[in-house]
């Protein structure tokens, strides 16, 4: 289940972005993109944009990425 954007799980997600372990190639590459972006831009706007992108990605692919979503959000 993908948490709503206001769920505190997204804060934990961003805090552990560098060490999240997932298996799907698309998830790995998407998370790597976010990790690179927020490493260059530490602003709250960049953080919120990253959450928005991840939320959209998981929502569109939740039927195919059940294992990765469970691994990240429980």
């Amino acid at each position, binding site marked *: 289940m993908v948490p709503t954007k206001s769920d505190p799980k997204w804060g934990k997600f961003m805090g552990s972005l560098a060490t999240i372990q997932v298996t799907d190639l*698309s998830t790995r*590459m998407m998370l790597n993109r976010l990790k690179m972006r927020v490493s260059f831009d530490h602003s709250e706007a960049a953080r919120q944009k990253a959450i928005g992108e991840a939320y959209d990605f998981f929502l569109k692919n939740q039927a195919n990425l059940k294992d990765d979503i469970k691994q990240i959000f429980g």
Partner: protein
Amino acid sequence: MKSMMTVPQAAELIRSGKKLLIAGDEALLAALPQGEWIGGTIPYFMSEDGGLFTREQVQVVPLPDFVSIGEIKLYDINNLAQIPADYQSNGFAYAIVPAFSEAHQKFSQDCMNWPGVFDRPLVGWIAGIDLKDAGKVTPKVFNGRSGQASATEAVVMHANLPLQMFAKANIINLFRPGKGDSISFPTSGFEATERLINGKTLNFAEYVESLKIDPQLPLVADYMGAMVNVSFQSVDVSAGKVAFYAPVFPGVEYRIAEPVNDYAAQFDENLSARNVSPVFTCNCILNYLYAKLEGKKTGNIVGPITFGEIAYMLLNQTLVYLTFETR
């Protein structure tokens, strides 16, 4: 049915309405009739009988009947970023990009930042040529539906699957980051001059030369567990430049790969452990050359040997494969 076939055999499949992924010499692809196919030039293949060079046959991968094809479209550098917007609702996109073209450069530098690029599997390859023709012949891609060929644009087949299925892109990369220095790059690009190595700025060409680094070993970066290679094209110490077959990116930590002993055997082992039956695969011309794969089999894998592999982004020295899964 074996994947390697003559032009008349491939033409018969096209006329029968099959949906096909085709690779081969330009003259052979140009002789095929219009239909539901997409193609790119290359004379190197992994066939059922092993690695093969031929300009007499094409390699044909038929898609299952349950696959429906949406658009087959050419994209120039101005609309490449629209590829994800054209993704089918439950499908995959299969792209072929001509090597050495502006589309090749643009795709490889920008695709990671396209909105929605990871929303559906994007797989494919970089079309190439007989290495003996380097500088004389340009790689081409073909839109079989329209009959168009291009040396400057990417061609993409947007395919859809039944709702109970989904497509999945994956890679097999036998290279792992070595225990050597951490290498990073301040800007993206296919060339490197000054680079940060363990935090110190050094000339990268001199560094490679001084450590006698084997240029057959790629730079490897860990993308959240996915190992992504950037292969060396040339090292020019006098000009102080190193050229790569894919761009390096700032903010990514690279290391020179550990050597791979007996690529074919390790590949078989890796593939067997996965227990997959790919719909499509492609492998890199550098693996073909460096691991001397001509005549050798790599598991039951068949597909073009390419000038670059695409799994969302441009990869080097990597096997890309696409599978269909059931929900």
